[in-house]
């Protein structure tokens, strides 16, 4: 009896090891990679912070008040699509209302607001090959503004330039769904606030 239980325990332990070790090894490797110090030549955190401050000021001066508040509070901007045949030009999305979510330095994500169905990811970058400070990467808010200008100014061209992928290639669909949920809550709260403001009389 004892022998049978011991053998069973050993088998269970071996099976658990076989299943659990690759997962644990990957997590350890990721944790180590996350803690590793990566030297970037010429990187100056102070300069980058000042650049980001300037970029935020520029972004704020270009987009409307709602878009700015959305970026400030949620970290992304929604832009409504304007192509009548939809972003992918397929029959399913023809004539439907669609929108894009713009994240800094992540692909633009197209989705259907009514159903929150994700349509596609558009991988696009704005590299400055002159690398004035050793990097070709724009500050976060400049990247968002570049995408916003390209989408609102010439949606067809930016979509044609970008590499299109199925949702989930780079941006976790769970994160986008969560962000869309946050956006809905944010808009509801904002609407309530506006109604309250419209119904109240300012103090003398």
């Amino acid at each position, binding site marked *: 009896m004892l022998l049978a239980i011991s053998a069973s325990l050993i088998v269970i332990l071996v099976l658990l090891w076989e299943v659990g070790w690759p997962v644990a090894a990957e997590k350890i490797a990721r944790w180590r990679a996350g803690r590793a110090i990566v030297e970037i030549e010429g990187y100056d955190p102070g*300069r980058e912070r000042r650049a980001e401050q300037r970029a935020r000021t520029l972004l704020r001066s270009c*987009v*409307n008040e709602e878009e700015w508040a959305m970026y400030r509070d949620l970290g992304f901007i929604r832009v409504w699509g304007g192509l009548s045949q939809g972003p992918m030009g397929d029959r399913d999305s023809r004539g439907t209302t669609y929108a894009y979510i713009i994240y800094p330095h992540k692909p633009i994500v197209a989705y259907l607001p009514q159903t929150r169905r994700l349509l596609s990811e558009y991988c696009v*970058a704005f*590299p400055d090959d002159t690398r004035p*400070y050793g990097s070709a990467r724009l500050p976060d808010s400049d990247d968002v503004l570049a995408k916003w200008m390209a989408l609102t*100014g010439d949606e067809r061209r930016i979509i044609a330039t970008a*590499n299109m992928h199925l949702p989930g290639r780079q941006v976790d669909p769970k994160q986008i769904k969560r962000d869309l949920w946050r956006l809905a809550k944010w808009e509801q709260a904002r609407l309530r606030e506006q109604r309250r403001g419209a119904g109240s009389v300012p103090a003398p």
Partner: protein
Amino acid sequence: MKPGHGEVLIAEGDVDVPEEHDELVAAFREQLDAGMWAAVPRATPGGRREAQMVSSFDDVPPDADRVIFFPRAAGGQ
């Protein structure tokens, strides 16, 4: 827009002053020749904000107060 810096003023002037107009045109061409895209942020009659992409100085609306240059888009990874 510049990596590591953000907004940089390239040129400013009054398009109605001939010398300044020429300077602005030269600066505009220089940026486009360097491979930048140019856009003019503007408000639509409906109150929305959007950008107008411009590829020549003549396309810049007369009432525009600025043109923003940013690196040309490329397909990302």
